[in-house]
């Protein structure tokens, strides 16, 4: 049940932010630091999430070779300018392939 509460709270919070931006006074954007902060926060949070999902299991740090190789393959695909879904497919296939081989 509590997962439901988290799902609904997240939905409500996300909607409130979208709505607030659309109706907020335009003068908020005049401060360059506000602009800068809102531009960079997603970079920080998303990178942190990638790092944690790649190298942590709950509270312990771990190194799962198949998972890291999958992300490495994703980086290679991105460097080759592959489309979004192709990047995801290559990452999952690499990880799955290595696990099949017993990595």
């Amino acid at each position, binding site marked *: 049940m509590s*997962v439901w*509460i*988290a*799902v*609904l709270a*997240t*939905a409500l*919070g*996300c*909607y409130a*932010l*979208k*709505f607030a*931006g*659309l*109706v*907020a006074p*335009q003068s*908020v954007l005049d401060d*360059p*630091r506000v602009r*800068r*902060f809102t*531009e*960079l926060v*997603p*970079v*920080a*949070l*998303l*990178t*942190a*999430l*990638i*790092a*944690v*999902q790649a190298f*942590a*299991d*709950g*509270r312990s*740090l771990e190194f799962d070779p198949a*998972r890291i190789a*999958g*992300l490495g393959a*994703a980086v290679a695909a*991105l460097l080759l300018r592959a*489309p*979004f*879904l192709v*990047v*995801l497919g290559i*990452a*999952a*296939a*690499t*990880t*799955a392939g290595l*696990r*099949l081989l017993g990595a």
Partner: protein
Amino acid sequence: MANTRRDGDAAAPSGDARSAAIRDGLGVGVAVGVSGLAFGAAAVTAGLTVAQACVLSLLAFTGASQFALIGVIGGGGGLVAGSLGAVLLGGRNALYGLRLARTLDVRGARLPLTAHVVIDETTAVATAQPDKASARAGFYTTAITIYVAWNLTTLAGAVGAGRIGDPDALGLDVLGPAAFLALLWPRLTAGRTEARVALAAAAVALATTPLLPPGVPVMLAAVAVLPALLRREESA
């Protein structure tokens, strides 16, 4: 004479711009919308039910926050921290709304619905257009296409993942981080400030992971932005 000619010239490109905006919207909407497949599969892999995955896509409707919440839940993290982190990630949509308010100029009954579709992709298409009319056309085309595609593919991904034996064996656990990486890639390679912020954020999150409840290190990583702001202030 000159005025008439200019008006005539402006009319033709404006129509073209509008069709181009609609084409942009359809392309982005379908290409990104179908990645709801990855979200649906990852959500069920993380332990959500099919209904929970679908409600998130219908009501939260912002990919990064949705992946963030299921990432924390899948990692056994606290639900409060997970929700807070996800909502914090949705903060950039508020900035998009600020930027788009004047362009879209919505009032009345359409405002609450328009607010719901202020996300990365609709903003990207709208801000790429040369005039207001095509910006609006691009915005709403992207919005409708991506909303339908994202929700249908979330359902398909969630149901499909439920029929799969061991999700890890298929490498589905790598979909979340790979999706974030792909979404972030243009920003990470765009400038040194972004790369520095990213590295610092990853370091903060990993260093505090053994010490704090899951979900909190990701939120804490927002402090990695502060040095970039201070540096800006000094140079200004």
